[in-house]
């Protein structure tokens, strides 16, 4: 039964939830992003200590050395909550699907010279394992991090990494006629090839890191900030310049994704650094430590990809990251620009 509401007599009692209003400072209309994120995680009166970590509460701010007065100071500039996130990605995957189909139909990767096919497999397909590691690392942050503002974004980011791992696998399948040979070969490279071992060791080291913010910084800021541009801004354009845009089409998702998610990674680091000099110092320490480790680990890999141009390619991505860090207030000079 439809009811005629005497709308004039209706008085709206409040604009949003109290837990949202507390964050906004007063009861005022809130966005879907805000109602989906703010103060959504339990914070008090936990019943049992975890069997897997009896010295901590279920959710516990002490799982990182970063300290925040308000863990909801972190904001995702993309304003992603589940609905907005999946809607954006569903559009992007449509475009990617078309590219995959296009390249497949015309055999654009299959028909590349053997040598180039091998080079692409070497550079990109073992990276699926690295992306799987990135997935698990973001899953760790989602599981043990503090506050929905950051943990929901790492949930999305982690699933993105699974998506990337699978798109990289699809590139392998386009190259091997869906036989899976390239994937098996890539696994061997990942497990055994000398140029991949430093990266695998680095990833395994990260996978035992127990400070979730440290892991966030090392994975999402430093490693990604160096490796992704190296592969998708340096290596891929070299291939495409000589052999046509097939690979560009297939990595468009990755480059768009990297720019988009970097905005969120940067906002997160900036907020943590701006909170206190102690945080900024801590972040700088982690960045410095992983920066040199990662540059070292990338050496042999870059040499395989770029030959004698390796040093130049590495210098470029290093400079890009340094500029980014300076902007965020965690550069090696210690000053925000």
């Amino acid at each position, binding site marked *: 039964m439809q009811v005629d509401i005497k709308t004039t007599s209706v008085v709206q009692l409040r604009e949003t939830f109290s837990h949202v209003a507390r964050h906004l400072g007063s009861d005022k209309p809130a966005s879907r992003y805000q109602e989906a994120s703010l103060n*959504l995680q339990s914070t008090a009166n936990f019943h049992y200590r975890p069997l897997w970590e009896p010295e901590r509460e279920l959710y516990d701010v002490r799982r990182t050395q970063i300290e925040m007065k308000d863990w909801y100071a972190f904001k995702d500039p993309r304003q992603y909550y589940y609905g907005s996130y999946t809607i954006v990605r569903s559009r992007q995957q449509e475009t990617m699907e078309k590219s995959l189909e296009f390249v497949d139909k015309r055999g654009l990767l299959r028909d590349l010279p053997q040598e180039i096919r091998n080079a692409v497999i070497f550079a990109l397909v073992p990276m699926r394992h690295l992306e799987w590691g990135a997935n698990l690392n973001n899953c760790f942050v*989602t599981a043990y991090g503090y506050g929905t503002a950051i943990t929901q974004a790492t949930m999305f980011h982690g699933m993105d990494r699974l998506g990337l791992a699978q798109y990289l696998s699809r590139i392998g399948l386009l190259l091997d006629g869906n036989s899976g040979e390239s994937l098996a070969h890539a696994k061997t490279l990942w497990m055994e090839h000398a140029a991949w071992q430093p990266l695998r060791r680095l990833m395994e080291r990260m996978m035992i890191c127990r400070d979730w913010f440290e892991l966030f910084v090392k994975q999402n800021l430093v490693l990604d900030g160096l490796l992704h541009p190296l592969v998708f801004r340096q290596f891929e354009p070299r291939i495409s310049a000589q052999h046509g845009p097939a690979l560009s089409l297939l990595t468009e998702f990755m480059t768009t994704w990297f720019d988009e998610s970097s905005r969120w990674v940067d906002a997160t680091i900036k907020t943590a650094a701006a909170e206190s000099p102690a945080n900024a110092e801590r972040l700088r320490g982690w960045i410095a430590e992983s920066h040199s480790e990662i540059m070292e680990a990338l050496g042999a890999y870059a040499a395989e990809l770029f030959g004698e141009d390796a040093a130049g390619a590495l210098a470029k991505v290093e400079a890009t990251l340094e500029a980014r860090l300076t902007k965020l207030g965690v550069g090696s000079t210690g000053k925000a620009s």
Partner: protein
Amino acid sequence: MNMPISGKPPKKLSLKENYALLTRGLGWETSYESMDKVFPQCDFEGIKIHDWDKWEDPFRLTMDAYWKYQGEKERKLYAIVDAFQQNNGQFNVSDARYINTLKLFLTGVSPLEYGAHRGFAMAGRNFKGAGASIAAQMQAIDELRHAQTQAHTISHYNKFFHGMHDPIHMFDRVWYLSVPKSYFEDAMTAGPFEFVTAISFSFEYVLTNLLFMPFMSGAAFNGDMATVTFGFSAQSDESRHMTLGLEVVKFILEQDPANLPIVQRWLDKWFWRGYRLLALVAMMMDYMLPKRVMSWSEAWGMYFEQNGGALFNDLARYGVRMPKYHDVAAKEKDRLSHETWGIFYNYTHAAGFHTWVPEEGEMKWLSEKYPATFDKHYRPRFEYWRDQQKKGERFYNKTLPMLCQTCQIPMGFTEPDDPTKICYRESHYRDNKFHFCSDGCKDIFDFEPEKYVQSWLPVHQVYQGNCFRPGTDPTAPGFDPLLEVLKYYNFNVGKDGGEYLDSEDKKHWEQWTGKPGVSI
């Protein structure tokens, strides 16, 4: 890097092959760091897994397909939610009493969705097999979806009705919400295998119909199209989760015979834990829905005794038997909802939703559905309360009840074989006496006393002075402890709880919709 990969024309992949290629081989056996360090929680529960590749992927969803399907579902869902809000759909429900089920849902269930989101992220990070990890992670993100779509949908109701303005704050503090909170935290603080057995199997697979059917069909019967929409949209995720639940248990049992006794104990524990939690749903079905769907007793008969019975028959080949105390649940099914509603009628002034004495027509329905118990044990009590209320002496219980140490429900349930006698059980542990509502709850405590002595029991906490806002001075003149506790809960005192007939919700409903309200 010279292995020749032939550029042969592509063969067509089935969905299953495609999924396997894109997913199965992603993980690897770590060697620079030991697998035990990388996956430190995989062993401590005693579950033995020999071959993670035996995991049958129940979803077979790649990420691109996930984005595609879920993005499509969200587009549709939010279009309907937008339309609902524009059309003031909240005033089309059967009666404002119905809104109280949404208060219970948003404060008692939505936070569990959030807990499931985090708990499955934990499980996803801890499983060594990529297939199992991905299944858990997909559920983790789905559960975030449920928490968020529920907040977005019910947000609109919150603008016009009381009792649901601060759900997470209340979840962390309010006495009866410690029932769902402790249930879920119990699972999350256990290991990854117990967590998935508890939530994926015992809850999602065995008991979920008893949660979702009542709320979603209840919404449909009572004209709440917003809740129906998010409910059905979530249902398609739910069917994936149920498949996962069954796969989890079969996989663990097939891996090693030594896993059986551990799993059976978890099935016993989580059956009873889940069943006690559902007491809140039982009262909601029989008392809070102005238009009823079916009785708790009927639902239990259909969804647990029949469907659950068939399921456990199927699992018998693994050596699994029916959960312990399922016979007690059967004995209680004609009493559970009445006893629980009685408790809330007593303490509604300290609750975030309203209670009431059923109308005469509703009592008739209850008599029909519960011929053996209602008229004999419960109707006289409601009639007495109704008479008191007519005299202006609505009964509120001003003392605080004793709580069960395990399920944390006030000790108001009766002996399995005597509906007139309250059931008390106790255990001694480290010079203290602990109280339980049932043998089921006592067993759970006795097996892991170190865990359950930690229970944050709301009544104990009130008496210990831990449930006041910071800066409250209990020695100040005129100090009103109950009022101070309600402020600690952030209740709008007198609006969020109490008798429905005296409520602002009722007054607004009549003013705004012109519909007649209920009376006694």
